[in-house]
């Protein structure tokens, strides 16, 4: 590998670190978009089978070209800007909805050393970037100059801000047990302990000692991405399609891409923080990117499963769950974990 890179690096000279970083970014974003495209197909297929339907099966063999056809259709559609809209912000809205979902991947490790930026404050960076996501929603909602879009945007934004707090506290527990903000270190710290030494690695991952936080993080992740059963943004029985109601064509597609990219991000983060990332569940199988992909796919399947099974939450119930159940629970658990880590019973030493 090194032998192949050397002459290329010589060719670019001083600009090589920049070119290399750009190549790494392309290497993440291109497969990510492919995953997003096929996640939409997977969603329709999985929910189809759960409802004893076939799902899309016309375009290409077994409907495999459906996402491409959808993409081409959205690209060719006209982007309509409402006459009363605030033009600049109307365009910036969808960009801001997708941007943070991609920027967050900068610190996500795929394997030991496979990361664009191995930052010390990686977890903090993730929290900051995911907290910017809400801007896309409120800017789009306000710039559309429409009551329905604004109502939907307010709902989405309030929900995202509320669940971010519970999510943050759940992450505080993780970083206390691994005593690091670096995501690679967090994964590596999950591979230590008695269970891991006995070859049962999956018992030493964070999901078991931090089980309530794992559940809180998973549910908050679903609420944070505005997915069913928390998708009151587009609750068609109350309001029309939420903050993106005035958008068409590719501008709408950007919101769509952002939502699915966020789903993949939350799933990957859940796997990294609670399910041991690329570590193998049992000792006799090797670690590798393969495991992270399987875990992420499993969490993504949970997203689709929930959507097919649960009825939509009422809005006041969502707020109650966030503020009156999750935040007190996580606050309490932060104290419990802090005491546990410092006590002689600590399993993380």
């Amino acid at each position, binding site marked *: 590998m090194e032998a192949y890179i050397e002459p290329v690096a010589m060719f670019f000279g001083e600009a090589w670190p920049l070119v290399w970083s750009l190549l790494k970014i392309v290497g993440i974003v291109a497969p990510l978009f492919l995953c997003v495209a096929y996640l939409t197909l997977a969603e329709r297929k999985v929910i189809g089978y759960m409802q004893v339907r076939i799902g899309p099966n016309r375009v290409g063999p077994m409907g495999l070209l459906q996402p491409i056809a959808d993409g081409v259709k959205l690209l060719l559609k006209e982007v309509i800007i409402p006459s009363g809209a605030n033009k600049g912000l109307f365009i910036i809205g969808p960009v801001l909805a997708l941007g943070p979902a991609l920027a967050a991947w900068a610190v996500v490790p795929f394997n030991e050393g496979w990361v664009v930026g191995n930052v010390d*404050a990686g977890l*903090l960076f993730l*929290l900051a970037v995911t907290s910017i996501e809400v801007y896309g929603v409120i800017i789009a909602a306000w710039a559309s100059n429409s009551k329905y879009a604004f109502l939907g945007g307010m709902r989405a934004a309030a929900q995202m*801000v509320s669940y971010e707090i519970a999510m943050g506290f759940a992450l505080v527990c993780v970083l206390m047990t691994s005593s690091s903000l670096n995501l690679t270190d967090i994964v590596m710290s999950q591979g230590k302990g008695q269970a891991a030494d006995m070859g049962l690695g999956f018992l030493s991952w964070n999901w078991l000692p931090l089980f309530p936080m794992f559940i809180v993080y998973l549910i908050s992740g679903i609420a944070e991405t505005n997915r069913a059963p928390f998708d009151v943004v587009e609750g068609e029985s109350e309001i029309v399609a939420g903050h993106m109601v005035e958008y068409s064509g590719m501008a709408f597609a950007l919101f769509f891409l952002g939502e699915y990219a966020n789903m993949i991000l939350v799933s990957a983060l859940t796997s990294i923080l609670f399910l041991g990332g690329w570590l193998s569940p049992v000792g006799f199988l090797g670690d590798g990117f393969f495991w992270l992909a399987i875990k992420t796919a499993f969490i993504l399947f949970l997203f689709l499963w929930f959507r097919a099974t649960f009825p939509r939450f009422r809005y006041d119930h969502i707020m*109650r769950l966030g503020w009156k159940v999750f935040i007190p629970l996580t606050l309490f658990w932060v104290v419990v974990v802090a005491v546990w880590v410092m006590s002689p019973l600590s399993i993380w030493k």
Partner: protein
Amino acid sequence: MDFQSVIFYFFSTVLVLASLAVITSKNPVHAALFLVLAFFTAGGIWMLLHAEFLAIALVMVYVGAVMVLFLFVVMMLDINIERIRQGFWSYLPVGALIGVLMVIEMVMVLGGRNFGLEEMPHPAEVQQGYSNTKELGRLLYTDYVYPFELASIVLLVAMVAAVALTLRKRKNVRKIDPAEQISVKRDDRVRIVSMRSEKD
């Protein structure tokens, strides 16, 4: 000029322009969004100073939480721009006085002999494995633990006060008890009556 300086001047230009736009833009929503840009760029400049914890905390707290709530409020206000402009000339003397005072203070801090580049020693270069976050945490919880606790108590009091000021008991509010809703059985709501089919 090395690469770092180029980035610094780029960030500074954006920061100054964004701050200017905050006070000159007519639409308050635009002003709030320019403030977001200003915070973001300030975070970038702090990052150049190797203060990554502060930079990310600035983005997380101000951009991610404070400004979102700000935008909420500003977007829901029905602001008449003409009426805001009305008192401009009568407020100008007070505003100008405060502005001049702030400029004098800044000149005293930045231009004075006490804080010149020669007076302040250049901070030591960071070593490999240096963690800004760890260092800050160590200082906050050892050397500065009492001021830190004091600040958190002040914040707690402010929080309680804010809740106490806005909390109102309203009459005629129909509250729903979720526990009661969940514990409902089918028989409480539906009664199945068996009756023969009728013909008319």
